């Protein structure tokens, strides 16, 4: 009996970018058209695979969980990859953002420097691998693949600012990787397994003295994820790096920040659920309060800065903090709403990153200086006489797109950010059956989320007014169609998410329900037999 072909789809999101990146590496930079075409085919293939995985996990595979054993080794011994509803959705998100970033990079960023497309493919391989793997050490390997590619990409378009940011970014992440290794070693030493489902099975039966060591190990490991997810006080590297990176890279970095939150969600719900005996609910409070501190830090940063790149970086910190707090609150209904927020805020922030460079083109250096002096000396400058000419199309597009991004980041109606925040508040106020009613923690979280939205709208409005209304614009900025299209497409996806919120929510409810049943993963991953070899088949 050979394996049903559809099951091989689980490994395609890792193999396809690996092969494409390796093929592109030896091509010289002069052939950028060919390189771009190959990268485009690969990313479109990834999108198709990811959509197929969504359909299969949702309708075809039992329990919505499909393990794939690398080299056909049975579960706790070999490396298992697992596709479920959540990871399939994350793959779709990755492919969408990659498509937008790649398209944006086509006229300019993909042509300068070397090996942009290879590094981009390897980054995708690392991100997809981190979403799919079900083995802790393999997770470390995919994290390193993702990080190594991101080091190269942050440096892409080599200048002093990028080098300086990379020095910090690489040092922080190298140190975080060492913590990851220490954590993995401790987990292996106490439980004797690296497979997540096997770990979840064994954690309930651990002796008290090993349990302490396991919790220490997982906490050390979590530091590595939280450094990526920029939880306060581990996220100081983030705004500088995001502001320095080129826009298509920054758009992908937004997703990388979310990989940290995704891994925390996955490991915590699997290993430390309510049913885990003595280990139940370990660390949830730390995540909740840490997440709330992160929201405060990010919101303060947004108010304090007036460059678009850094503002977007702080907005990413706020959204990451919100997610961590939602995970730490430990309530299934809230996790479902948090997943919607995950998707919506990632798309909004990526679009904002891409838009940033285009908006900066209308900010002439003189306007930037004026904004600074206006801040320092409170200058009252007399506005020039209105000339009464029409708004050029480029300006109209930029300001509308900026307004849409601002609405989504702040969470105001009518776009997806509002739906996400409304969903979270609804889940907080109606905790569902058997859950304690909303207490002081819940009200604090709600107040912080509302306040961070208010801060976001204040700082973005300040920037928007200065840029679009008050700046001395000489002529409309020159935009390339290939740069406008991805921003518009991402915004269209957000509108679609808003209009089609109900089916998306239903899907996320199923994904969230799976996450809260660790037994399902234990049964499916450890219970699926490997494919019988040809010798066994002949008998």
């Amino acid at each position: 009996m050979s394996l049903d072909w559809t099951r091989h789809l689980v490994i395609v999101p890792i193999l396809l970018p690996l092969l494409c990146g390796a093929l592109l590496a030896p091509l010289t930079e002069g052939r950028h058209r060919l390189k771009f075409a190959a990268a485009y085919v690969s990313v479109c293939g990834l999108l198709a695979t990811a959509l197929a995985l969504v359909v299969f996990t949702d309708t075809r595979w039992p329990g919505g969980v499909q393990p794939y054993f690398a080299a056909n080794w049975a579960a706790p011994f070999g490396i298992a990859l697992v596709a479920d509803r959540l990871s399939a959705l994350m793959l779709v998100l990755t492919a969408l953002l990659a498509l937008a970033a790649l398209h944006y990079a086509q006229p300019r960023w993909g042509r300068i420097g070397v090996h942009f497309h290879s590094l981009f493919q390897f980054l995708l391989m690392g991100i997809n691998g981190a979403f799919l793997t079900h083995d802790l050490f393999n997770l470390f390997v995919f994290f390193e693949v993702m990080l190594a590619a991101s080091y190269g990409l942050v440096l892409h378009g080599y200048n002093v600012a990028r080098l300086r940011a990379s020095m910090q970014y690489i040092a922080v992440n190298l140190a975080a990787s060492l913590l990851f290794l220490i954590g993995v070693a401790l987990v292996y030493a106490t439980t004797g397994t690296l497979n997540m489902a096997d770990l979840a099975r064994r954690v309930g039966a651990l002796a008290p003295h090993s349990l302490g060591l396991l919790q220490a190990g997982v906490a050390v490991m979590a530091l590595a994820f939280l450094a990526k997810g920029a939880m306060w006080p581990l996220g100081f590297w983030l705004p500088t790096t995001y502001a320095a990176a080129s826009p298509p890279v920054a758009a992908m970095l937004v997703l990388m920040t979310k990989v940290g939150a995704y891994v925390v969600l996955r490991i915590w719900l699997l290993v430390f659920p309510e049913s885990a005996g003595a280990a139940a609910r370990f660390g949830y409070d730390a995540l909740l309060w840490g997440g709330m501190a992160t929201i405060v830090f990010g919101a303060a940063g947004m108010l304090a800065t007036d460059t678009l790149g850094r503002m977007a970086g702080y907005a990413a910190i706020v959204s990451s903090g919100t997610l961590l707090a939602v995970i730490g609150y430990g309530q299934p209904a809230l996790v479902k709403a948090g997943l919607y927020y995950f998707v919506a805020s990632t798309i909004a922030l990526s679009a904002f990153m891409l838009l940033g460079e285009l908006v900066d083109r209308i900010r002439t250096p003189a306007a930037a200086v004026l904004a600074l002096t206006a801040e320092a000396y409170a200058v009252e400058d007399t506005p020039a006489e209105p000339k009464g000419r029409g708004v050029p199309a480029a300006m109209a597009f930029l300001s509308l797109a900026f307004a849409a991004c601002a609405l989504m980041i702040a969470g105001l109606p009518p776009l997806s950010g509002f739906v996400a925040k409304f969903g979270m508040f609804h889940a907080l106020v109606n905790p569902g059956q058997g859950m304690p009613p909303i207490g002081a923690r819940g009200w604090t979280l709600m107040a912080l989320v509302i306040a961070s939205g208010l801060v976001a709208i204040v700082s973005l409005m300040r920037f928007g007014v200065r840029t679009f209304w008050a700046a001395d614009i000489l002529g409309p900025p020159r935009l390339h169609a290939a740069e406008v299209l991805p921003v518009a497409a991402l915004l269209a996806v957000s509108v679609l998410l808003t209009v089609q919120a109900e089916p998306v929510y239903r899907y996320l409810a199923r994904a969230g329900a799976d996450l809260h049943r660790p037994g399902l993963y234990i049964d499916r991953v450890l219970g699926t037999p490997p494919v019988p070899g040809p010798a066994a088949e002949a008998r």
Partner: protein
Amino acid sequence: MEIVLSLAIGIVFGSGIWLVLRPRSFQVLTGLMLMSYAVNLFIFAMGRLSLDQPPLTPVGTVPDPAVLADPVPQALVLTAIVIGFATTALYLVVMIGARGLSGTDHVDGEEPET
């Protein structure tokens, strides 16, 4: 043996932390390398310390976990060494680039005011 090994790991890791907090980029790099050596030793020690125990089963014998060393941490440590080596080399290149562009080897990219 446990005390000696844990002291050694602790001293190497501690030296690494001290070096990472120094202001010159080469010191930071050396610190990261020392820390990664300590971590590699640590992973190795997590497979339990034992003498004269191969991680392999000799031909023709029944496998007996009591006389075998755990092969998994050894495999993990090999992977960790390779990855650590590659990322450290990459950091070295970035460091040289930063030295060339900014003219200083301070980690901030500029000399502190004295």
